């Protein structure tokens, strides 16, 4: 038994294929499959819906079989000749004009090339892996996954049929995993589905191995996958929405604490409790807002360094909540009096301070009773937890390899333990957290990133933000729609919403 091959096809082998849905996510969101509502609240059940899902999955498999398997076959036929591999790689690079699929293919291929070099360093033909890795890092190979995979299989002396089978099995496994993460069905149903679909693979392998001109046979899938960035940016917007929600809540809390301080005139609160709270609030409002780093691209648009799925995205709008409410101070009327700080007695009633705390507790999944028992510790821990978790998850998603990648899910799990349900949200959470220690730490965290957004907790973020204005003298809530028509300066936006109670005078 070839244990090296078993290790290669093991789901724990961190090449990032887990994070690739093969276009399934885009299909669910952009077409009327009916699998999933806009808030991800639909689950596939048995019957025609499930049959439809199986058909879509087969279509994705056919696309992979018709386009990529011929390259796996040809890479095996190259017998380790790097020059031939480079030609195949170039051919696939030109053929794969869908930038989303190309990105995923390149990242998986590069990961595989780097990983086999280190993992199989004691293999009798380790120099082949070294040569492959050198070619990728040296730029001779773009490093597409099917080509690199075929090369590795040829070193392991697998025949084309076995390699194609392993390749398509990996695609199917990733698709089923993505479906579970999308909430289409549970893990047990997933295994049943995978088993049902596996029986279709031999026929597909047979057809794929005789293809002379690689092609796409289901173009709508290709088109939907090309549009994947749109839904990702939608999700990142939701991520920003989450951050905006925390900003909003942090400001609520700060206002409430200020009022409490003024009302009770307790010096300890002013000197000891309030400053760290303010620092946390600023931490949420300030640097933590850099969820995704933008830089100008050569095409004129802006592009993220890496997206939550370990793929690059394109953005032409600032990373602020888009198409929804954001906090903007109401400009004073032309002839109105200058802004005056409201006296504490003119503010909202004292009980209003508890509203954001209770709301926060409820959304975070803490029972009403436990929230009432210790509001202040809860406040502290929730603020700290939220900022850390957001930072850990998102930084991990944007910076593959960052040690914080493992920190995010870890904190999420810790918060789960504390009763903040919703942070450790997916059935594969534990499995994906395992990526944290490996060289593909970014993928693990990146997968958690979308996971965060695709769970009901994210929906709560989305529905809650903007619908509750702060009590009393609050910043005005304006609707900005569409976002592209209004230039928004992030820094300006942050300064406007900074912790300053004087700001809220209408």
């Amino acid at each position: 038994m070839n244990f090296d091959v078993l290790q290669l096809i093991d789901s724990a082998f961190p090449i990032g294929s887990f994070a690739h849905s093969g276009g399934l996510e885009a299909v669910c969101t952009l077409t009327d499959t009916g699998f999933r509502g806009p808030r991800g609240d639909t689950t596939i059940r048995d019957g025609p819906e499930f049959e439809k899902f199986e058909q879509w999955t087969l279509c994705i498999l056919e696309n992979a079989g018709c386009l990529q398997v011929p390259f796996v076959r040809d890479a095996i036929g190259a017998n380790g000749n790097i020059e031939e591999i480079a030609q195949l790689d170039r051919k696939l690079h030109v053929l794969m004009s869908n930038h989303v699929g190309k990105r995923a293919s390149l990242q998986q291929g590069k990961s595989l090339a780097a990983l086999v070099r280190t993992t199989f360093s004691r293999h009798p033909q380790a120099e082949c892996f070294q040569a492959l890795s050198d070619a990728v890092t040296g730029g001779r190979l773009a490093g597409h996954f099917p080509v690199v995979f075929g090369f590795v299989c040829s070193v392991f002396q697998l025949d084309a049929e076995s390699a194609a089978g392993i390749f398509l099995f990996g695609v199917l496994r990733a698709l089923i995993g993505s479906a579970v993460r999308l909430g289409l069905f549970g893990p047990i149903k997933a295994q049943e589905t995978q088993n049902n679909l596996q029986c279709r693979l031999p026929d597909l392998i047979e057809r794929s191995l005789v293809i002379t001109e690689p092609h796409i046979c289901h173009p709508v899938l290709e088109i939907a996958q090309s549009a994947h960035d749109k839904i990702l940016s939608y999700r990142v917007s939701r991520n920003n929405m989450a951050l905006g929600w925390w900003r909003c809540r942090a400001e609520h809390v700060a206002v409430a604490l200020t009022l409490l301080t003024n009302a009770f005139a307790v010096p300890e609160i002013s000197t000891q409790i309030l400053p760290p709270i303010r620092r946390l609030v600023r931490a949420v409002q300030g640097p933590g807002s850099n969820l995704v780093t933008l830089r100008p691209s050569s095409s004129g648009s802006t592009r993220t360094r890496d997206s939550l799925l370990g793929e690059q995205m394109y953005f032409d709008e600032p990373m602020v909540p888009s198409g929804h409410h954001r906090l903007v101070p109401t400009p004073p009327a032309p002839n109105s009096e200058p802004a005056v700080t409201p006296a504490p007695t003119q503010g909202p009633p004292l009980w209003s301070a508890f509203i954001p705390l209770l709301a926060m507790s409820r959304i975070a999944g803490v029972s009403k009773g436990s929230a009432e028992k210790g509001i202040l510790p809860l406040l502290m821990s929730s603020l700290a937890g939220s900022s850390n978790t957001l930072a850990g998850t998102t930084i991990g998603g944007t910076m593959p390899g960052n040690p914080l990648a493992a920190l995010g899910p870890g904190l999420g799990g810790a918060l789960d333990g504390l009763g903040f349900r919703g942070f450790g949200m997916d059935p594969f959470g534990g499995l994906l957290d395992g990526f944290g220690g490996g060289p593909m730490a970014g993928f693990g965290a990146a997968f958690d990133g979308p996971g965060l957004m695709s769970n009901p907790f994210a929906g709560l973020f989305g529905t809650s933000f903007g619908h509750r204005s702060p009590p009393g003298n609050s910043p005005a809530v304006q609707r900005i729609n569409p976002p592209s028509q209004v230039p928004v300066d992030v820094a300006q936006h942050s300064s406007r919403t900074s912790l300053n109670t004087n700001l809220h005078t209408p």
Partner: protein
Amino acid sequence: MSLGNELLSELEGEVEVRSDDHGAYLNATEKCHEFCCSKVSLLLSRYPMKIWIPQINPARRSGCTWLFGVQFGGGLVEGDNVRCKITVQANCCVLYASLGQNKAYQCAVGKTVCQKNDFHVGPNSALFVLPDPTLLQKESALSQYQVTRVASNGNLVLLDWYISGREGLLEHWEGASLRSVNSIHMDGVEIFRDVMCLSGDLTLRRASMGKYRVIGLCVVVGDVVGRHLADAIKALSIGNSYGVAADTNQIVACSPLYSDCSDTVVCGHVIRFCYSTTITAYEGVADILNPIFAMAGGNPFEKNY
């Protein structure tokens, strides 16, 4: 004349467009002042293809030369093997369109219809290949192969789109086969290749096509057209707004096209789309290509839907 006969033995249509020797650059106030006045220096066509040059050029003010490629019978029938070559010399601007939807008619089992287009775009030139969509009738078998060679500073807009069938007869992607290959070379290096093949299991094909009646792609290459289409491409790259459900009646996506493997030099874009109705497809494509219509001097789809 001998040259013409020789060419006709190989091709069903050939056009060559050169810059007008006597014509200077158009007045800067004209719409399309990036390119020279141009004239058709060679025009050959034979059955079943005909290439028309409109006597009254709808774009006479823009300097763009319009050409219409027409098939006798309004489409391709079994056994047709149409090859067309269009050469655009330096500093010219050409629009190649059709006068209506081209059709691929029913073929006997095992027979196909072949169409091969060969486009050459010279330096500082522009070629807009904007035909109407090809309607794929039930049991049609079409094989289309389009190769475009563009100079490094040439410009190209290549539209290739298909309709699922005759709506009145409830045809929906029931053609026997469709094979479409689009290949673009820049300075001898292939920078884009798209191979789409619809054949095999009809149930799966229908499932994946869903309600979409029109699918296609539009490739944009070159600085000048890229500059004109920058806003449209930017709009296609923006994600959906929060809280707004995606319009499932259409999917439009844009991918950058790189001139090398390092993915650093963007030389164009690939716009892929699918629409649920023909009319929305026409309107959507016209919206995207509106700046190109301004360059070309008009909308070739204006009265076609």
